């Protein structure tokens, strides 16, 4: 497929890897923010092409993984109601709440449906006027325009039976929260390319300069990731801390203005609790007036209650890049994709699931 296959060329990948080897003189910790990048790195073994001094730290960029237990419990509560059709992206269905998951609710008779686009949920609402149709709005800035459009269209069509359980999160604020932790080991970032396709990358400029970290907007194919690492290493080795754009074919500096406009029309920025990380100020999106009429949390009166994670699950440390998945004692033992303790073992973009699928052994020592 054009724009995919040519970015998976093994010989060109080796060429980039050789250049990274040539330039690297010291150890560097580079975090890839997005779970899609983590998946590609582990699947294609990109980290194994790199010099030993370069450690790729897997970031918190998996929306499924960071959606708080409280919101998942709210989803489970709503989805179990008889008058509700609960719609969600497929990867949320198996994420464990504190007692069950959406697939189990469905097995017990709940009408839980997987959709490809939030607009599909709007269609279901139009076709089922006697039912309350709820969409589980999970995702980063990449997904926010789609969710915003669903609300915009539902408002335009005056659909009384559509609502949104909103769990949207924002990436730059999470990067800043990681950087401000004293335990942070990250020296450079591969920023999430598709988040930047929507938002552009100006909001990363103050982060790069405040924390003196290079930030390279990077795509998702092996050559993209290797070039992103190369550009980050070039900056690190020369003491620069700038925002650069590797993913120029898809990302403009200003992002996508019409998508941003709709996000701002429908949503406002709010504090948000991240699963495994805690509350991060200004890191979430909530509905703005007058669209709060579509807020499923308000409509169904589900309130936040504090719930505890499994004490065996260390996904919080994985999400913050403090341990690798296989360093968790539960990895592959009490916690597998079939019986996950935490969300990082569920989503295909979760670091634990990627390691379980592609790398059951500890990382081999590079020759």
């Amino acid at each position: 497929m054009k724009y995919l296959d040519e970015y998976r060329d093994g010989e060109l990948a080796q060429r980039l890897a050789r250049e990274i080897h040539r330039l690297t003189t010291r150890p560097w910790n580079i975090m890839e923010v997005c779970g899609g990048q983590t998946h590609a790195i582990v699947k294609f073994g990109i980290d194994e092409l790199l010099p030993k001094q370069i450690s790729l730290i897997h970031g918190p960029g998996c929306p499924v993984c960071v959606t708080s237990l409280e919101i998942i419990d709210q989803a489970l509560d709503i989805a179990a109601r008889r008058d509700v059709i609960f719609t969600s992206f497929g990867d949320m269905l198996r994420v464990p709440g504190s007692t069950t998951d959406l697939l189990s609710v469905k097995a017990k008779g709940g009408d839980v449906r997987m959709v490809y686009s939030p607009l599909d949920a709007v269609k279901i609402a139009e076709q089922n006027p006697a039912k309350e149709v709820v969409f589980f709005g999970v995702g980063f800035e990449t997904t926010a325009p789609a969710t915003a459009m669903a609300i915009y269209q539902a408002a335009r069509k005056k659909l009384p039976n559509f609502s949104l359980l909103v769990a949207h999160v924002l990436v730059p604020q999470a990067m800043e929260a990681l950087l401000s932790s004293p335990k942070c080991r990250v020296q450079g970032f591969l920023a999430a390319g598709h988040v930047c396709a929507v938002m552009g990358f100006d909001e990363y400029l103050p982060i790069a300069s405040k924390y003196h970290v290079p930030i390279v907007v990077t795509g998702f194919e092996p050559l993209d990731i290797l070039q992103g690492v190369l550009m980050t290493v070039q900056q690190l080795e020369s003491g620069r801390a700038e925002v650069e754009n590797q993913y120029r074919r898809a990302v403009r500096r200003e992002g996508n203005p019409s998508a941003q406009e709709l996000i701002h029309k429908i949503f406002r920025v709010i504090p948000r609790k991240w699963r495994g990380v805690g509350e991060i100020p200004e890191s979430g999106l909530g509905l703005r007036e007058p669209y709060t009429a579509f807020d499923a949390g308000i409509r169904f009166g589900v309130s936040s209650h504090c719930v505890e994670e499994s004490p065996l699950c260390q996904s919080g440390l994985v999400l913050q890049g403090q341990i690798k998945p296989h360093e968790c004692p539960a990895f592959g033992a009490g916690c597998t994709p079939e019986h996950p303790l935490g969300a990082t073992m569920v989503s295909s973009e979760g670091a634990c699931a990627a390691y379980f699928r592609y790398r059951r052994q500890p990382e081999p020592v590079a020759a």
Partner: protein
Amino acid sequence: MCLAIPGKITVISGEDPLERVGKIDFGGIIKEASLAFVPEARAGDYVIVHAGFALSRLDEDEAHKVFDYLKRMGELSELKEDGP
């Protein structure tokens, strides 16, 4: 979750900019996607699609640059290897 796949717009329908829909060819699989966020996109353009929406029109010139860069890098290393 932020997976977005490149595809080629084959046909566009809908007059209202917010209702513009394209048939997108993903290597032989055709799916519809909203073009509401890429008002500049025309039939024949490649776009990246996420959750039923085209988010960005792919820039062909920029797409070539990484390969030009790799080609130059390859020529340079050949020069180094062949040099005195």
